[in-house]
């Protein structure tokens, strides 16, 4: 993608975002917006809702960008990605309360995380799905699966080790 060739100096861009520079805001939106939209879309599964979540994410991010600098996050994208997922999980929980969609755990291989999840054994895939896409705490996942929280923690640790290997491939 052409965007990947553009270099963004994160220190300068963060300082400009904190100052409320509209040019910097547009630059960040143009550069990271589509990547974050893809991440959100994987969680909420609906384009209109994903756009609402993306809008909310950027409004929140531009308002609270000082948190990124103060918490010592490693990269701007890492922080944006966590913010986007957090907003998407919240929205997905609200959507689930109003309409009970069937849990489509086996999604298309359209992005990195789905490709990884689809490679996992069924039980591990369910745990990963409930933790990442549903944002549930380990205790809640354990209750849902009729297991002990420690077992879920150990399984999730194995999943993350597998993800580390998958990323390195």
């Amino acid at each position, binding site marked *: *993608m052409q*965007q*990947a060739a553009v270099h963004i100096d994160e220190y300068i861009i963060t300082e400009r975002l904190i100052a*409320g520079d*509209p040019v910097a*805001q*547009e630059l960040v*939106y*143009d550069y990271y*917006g*589509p*990547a*974050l*939209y*893809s*991440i959100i*879309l994987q969680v909420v599964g609906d*384009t209109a809702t*994903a*756009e609402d979540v*993306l*809008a909310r994410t*950027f*409004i929140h991010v*531009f308002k609270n960008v000082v948190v990124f600098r103060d918490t*010592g996050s*490693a*990269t701007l*994208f*890492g922080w944006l*990605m*966590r913010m986007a*997922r*957090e907003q998407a999980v919240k929205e997905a929980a609200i959507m689930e309360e109003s309409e009970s969609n069937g849990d489509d755990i086996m999604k298309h291989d*359209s*992005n*990195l*995380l789905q490709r990884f999840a689809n490679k996992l054994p069924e039980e591990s895939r369910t745990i990963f799905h409930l*933790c*990442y896409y549903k944002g549930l*705490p*380990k205790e809640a996942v354990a209750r849902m699966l009729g297991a002990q929280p420690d077992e879920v923690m150990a399984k*999730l*640790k*194995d*999943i*993350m*080790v*597998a*993800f*580390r290997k998958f*990323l390195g491939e």
Partner: protein
Amino acid sequence: MELNHYIQSGIIESYVLGIATTSEMDELQQMRRLYPSLNAEVMAVERRMEKTALAEAVLPSPHLKQRIFQHINWRDKIPPDDKSRYTFINIHSKDEQHITVHKWWRLFFIITFILSKICLFFAIYFFLKYQQSRERKTELQSSHTEQVRSPK
């Protein structure tokens, strides 16, 4: 190596994805302070995720950008303490039994009350004086009449 074992445990990936527990995140932050080389590991994982996410990006609707920036610009244009933009409406019910007057009327009523008391005092005082002088006049007249009659 302890640090290498910690890195291989998948804790960094768990943090990057946002699924680490609060205690895991606190532990990672402490480890990052102890071993600054961990920061490079976190950065490397995030950069790998970024590279893939940029390559797998999906374009949202072109109107979305306008929507977001319209919202941001609208919000930024309103200063938080700008009260001149608000209209205050008195929601007290209209009571026809009471009137509202300027506070200077209170002073006016107090002065009027004091003056009326002074006037009342002088009215009584002069009335008593007048009565006294009339009585004296009547007394003088009667004594004069007696003096005129007595030489006969």
